């Protein structure tokens, strides 16, 4: 595929992700942090985020499965998750986390479970999208092009 086409695709994809709220400005900031000294900064961070997410989602699932549910525990996990999602700019995940925390505060188990499901869904969506994004970037790099930055 043509590099230009790939670059256009990448731009479009990233714009769509921003538009649809999967990502926010923080992700762009993250990309700006990436320079020659740390060429894989974004990917590293996002990988870390994926690991973290899976671990936390697992923990949340387990914590919500307990009887009785320790909402403080769940809340701590969600807080963690909210922090990391905010750091990478995963806006939708972050928003769901905010709602999740409200449910934790009111000890609404049903709401929590719903939020967890939502989180899992959002996470998988985000993951797919980001992976696609990275794949495009890799392809561009493989084709010898530069990765466009988004203003």
């Amino acid at each position, binding site marked *: 595929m043509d590099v230009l086409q790939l670059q256009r695709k990448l731009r479009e994809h990233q714009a769509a992700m921003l*538009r649809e709220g999967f990502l926010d400005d923080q992700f762009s900031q993250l990309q700006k*942090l990436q*320079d020659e000294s*740390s060429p894989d900064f974004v990917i590293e*961070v996002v990988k870390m985020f994926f690991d973290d997410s899976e671990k936390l989602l697992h923990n949340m699932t387990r914590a919500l499965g307990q009887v009785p549910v320790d909402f403080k525990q769940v809340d701590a996990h969600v807080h963690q998750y909210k922090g*990391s999602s905010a*750091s*990478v*700019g995963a806006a939708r995940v972050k928003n769901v986390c905010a709602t999740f925390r409200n449910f934790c505060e009111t000890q609404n188990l049903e709401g929590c479970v719903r939020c967890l499901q939502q989180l899992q869904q959002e996470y998988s969506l985000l993951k797919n999208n980001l992976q696609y994004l990275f794949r495009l970037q890799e392809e561009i790099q493989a084709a010898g092009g530069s990765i466009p930055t988004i203003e």
Partner: protein
Amino acid sequence: MSLIHVVGFGLKVGHLLWVPCCLIVSFIYLNWFNCNLGINHNHNCSNNNKWKMGFLGDYDGKVWLNNWWEKNLGNTCKQYYYKYNSLRRSWWRKLWHAYVVFWIVISSSRFLHMSSEATEKRKESLVSLCDERARMLQDQFNVSMNHIQAMSILISTFHHAMDPSAIDQKTFARYTERTAFERPLTSGVAYAVRVLHSEREQFEKQQGWTIKRMDTLEQNPVQEDDFALEALEPSPIQEEYAPVIFAQETIKHVISVDVLSGKEDRQNVLRARESGKGVLTAPFRLLKTNRLGVILTFAVYKKELPSNATPDERIQATDGYLGGVFDIESLVEKLLQQLASKQSVIVNVYDTTNHTDPIAMYGSDVLGDEFYHVSTLNFGDPFRKHEMHCRFKQKPPWPWEAIHSSVGMLVIAVLIGYILYATVNRMFISEDNYNEQMELKKRAQAADVAKSQFLATVSHEIRTPMNGVLGMLNMLMDTDLDVTQQEYVRTAQGSGKALVSLINEVLDQAKIDSGKLELEAVVFDLRAILDDVLLLFSEKSQGKGVELAVYVSDEVPEQLIGDPGRFRQIITNLMGNSIKFTEKGHIFVTIHLVEEVVHSIEVEPQSTSKDTLSGYPVADIRRSWEGFKAFSQEGPLGSFSSPSSELVNLIVSVEDTGVGIPLEAQSRIFTPFMQVDPSISRKHGGTGIGLSISKCLVGRMNGEIGFVSIPNIGSTFTFTAVFTNGSPNSKEGRSQQINNQPHLASSEFHGTNALVIDPRPIRAKVSRYHLQRLDIRVELVSDLDQGLSLITNGNSAISIVFIEQEVWDRDSSISLHFVNNTRKVDPPKLFILVNSNSSFRASSVNSGDPFPVVITKPLKASMLAVTLQRAMGVGNRGNTRNVELPSLSLQHLLRGRRILVVDDNSVNRTVAAGALKKYGADVVCVSSGKDAISKLKPPHQFDACFMDIQMPEMDGFEATRRIRELEHMASIEASMDADGNNSKLRVPILAMTADVMQATNEECLKSGMDGYVSKPFEAEQLYREVSRFFPTS
């Protein structure tokens, strides 16, 4: 009796002691009681405070538990207290009963004591009366007896010792008759001679009568007066006889009667001759008078006998017997008549020779007092015993004195006791009331706190999801929407924003209610804030065609220290209200120093009402501050004449030409949730607490707020506020300050001359104010002709001309003329100042080719600058430079700094580290509070530390506290070593937090942190915080 006295005295003394004792005890009790009350009160208060603090403080479960404990503890204490109180009360009641009983006993004993005393006295007087009577009776009797004895001696001398006898019956009778006055008590005297049986015949012969018997006489002695002596039988033969030979006339009938023959008389006679003394018979009824009497008998002896003569000798020597009849009754009666108080005393005389059967001699059986006194009477006859009984005729009177005094005492004591008891009771009641009221007060306070808490919580809870809603709406706006959808979203967004602002207002009110509102003290630019506010309202005002203007006096310093947010809130509130209710005319905000205004009051006369921004009349601004206390104090300058340059007293007025406030609603305008009428809120929205909040805020800024409003003309709100001067040298520093403000880009216009053509001085002044802020020199003229002449003839080259729309539109030919003429010289740029785009567009069909630039009001320095730049082609690099400023500066600040990032979340850690590295910092990451402590040991290797707050095991606060402790110890050591290098001893620690709240900030500072940055980093905030620690050099 003496015992009773002793007891009585004891009681009296006891009473005297008891009263002061009571007083002392009651005083001590009162004091103690008060102390107790005070302590209890304090306890309640402290408990209450704690409770309140707990309620408002935070949601920490532990604190709640603590509070619950304390509350419960307090309650149980109080229960104990109540119990104790009721116990004490019943104790008091018992004491009161005991007191009453005690006094009843005392007073009854006193009564008994007094009445017994009275009885005693009565008895004594009776005794003395009785004894006196007895003695007198005895004396009287003795006198009579002595007379009779004297007579017996007379008889023995003149009858027996003489022969022949010198006395016969006749003589005797006469003598006795004549000497009867000497014996008033004897009714008669008779003499009987002793005749032996052997001498009887001779004696009878000699006398001429026989000796007669007495028995029958005795049997019926009172039959008739004239009973015949002859009827009496002659005396039977006896051993001896004692016939009466002489008798007083009154008892002549007893002559010849043998006294020995009568049983009583015989006894009498025998005893008389044996004893040689006067002897009495038992009382009997006297013959004629039918009164009780006795007969006194004396023996007459032949010779004088020695006093120790035996009875036999006496019998032998007996010659005869003299008898006298005593009328005892009359004796006693006469005696009693001589004495006082005979009426009150009843006297009875008895012969008690026979103890078992006393014979009444005198006195009736009239009932009298039960108590009587007995005095023995001695009539000289040892055989006979007589007694006198005396008693009072009246029953003893009621012992009134005793009754009065004892009852009085009881009443007084009970009254005093009752006063004490009532006082104590009252005290209990008021104590109860006090407790009850404290309880109510506490409940009311709790309710108030709960209300505020509820409002705060609810507001907070609504705000969180609302942010989500607004965020989502924002995102939705960015998606592909058709026109209708966009309209819907915009409406939803608008509503959401309105809701959030309303919630903020409610939250503010709640904060004010709970006293938690705190003002900041930061440096801020007043003019910039007003520009912001103008921008906020410009759209609305333009839509309505209302002119909006701001004027800040030159005297007001550029930089002030205070709370810009709250100041802005007040102005926004007031302007928001004005915008709501103004359909035409203008809204004009002016800010002066109070000193200026005060001087203008003195100097300027009342300006004409025509001289306003839009030409519409307005309410007189001066009247809006009529009520201000600071103005009325000591003359016009009042408290503002203080020379202190540190404090800046601002007076801010918001003047509108709206509908005004109805007179009847003006009084409650500052009441929360109050609106002029319900339809307002339907029409304009709002909660009606804006003004109330503004008033509170103004109060917090040490200012006052007031207003004047005339219906259908307009309202003017004025408030004062006190700030601190932020610019070190206000006058000189001002122009420099403006230059330093990059966004105004004023330096570009330095030295430019401008002309403002405006017939209204006030409006022109506003325009000049804004232009001057851009460092443009401004000339004011009122019409185009003047302007033209100034441009063509003036010394200074005018490069910009601002023309009011009104002037421009008045006559297009003049305008055209003006344009054409100005073009002749160096053509200045023309700007038309219009109120709203629409209004101008309609009339601006102008054919002139260099069409003047239209500037839509409200004027703002920044907007003016941009427009001027664009129109005059001045470079506009300023803006781009500004955006880059923080990040560039950050690089400058952070390059080469060693920074420790502490976060347990690997993603966050990496991102933060990445961001800091980007700015050139040397970053080290650790993942827990403990690691951070081990890394941060003084002297420090790091220049700064960014610490996450929420971490497992040890959170950011705790870690910071520990680090600060270590630093503290190190600094003590360092000071001992006198090592001057302190910079390595304290590392700046900044918190990284996702949710930035006031509480978090306070907590940060409390645990020794130096500030906080939000996560993920915002360049501007990061710059602000970091620049505090790293000097730019």
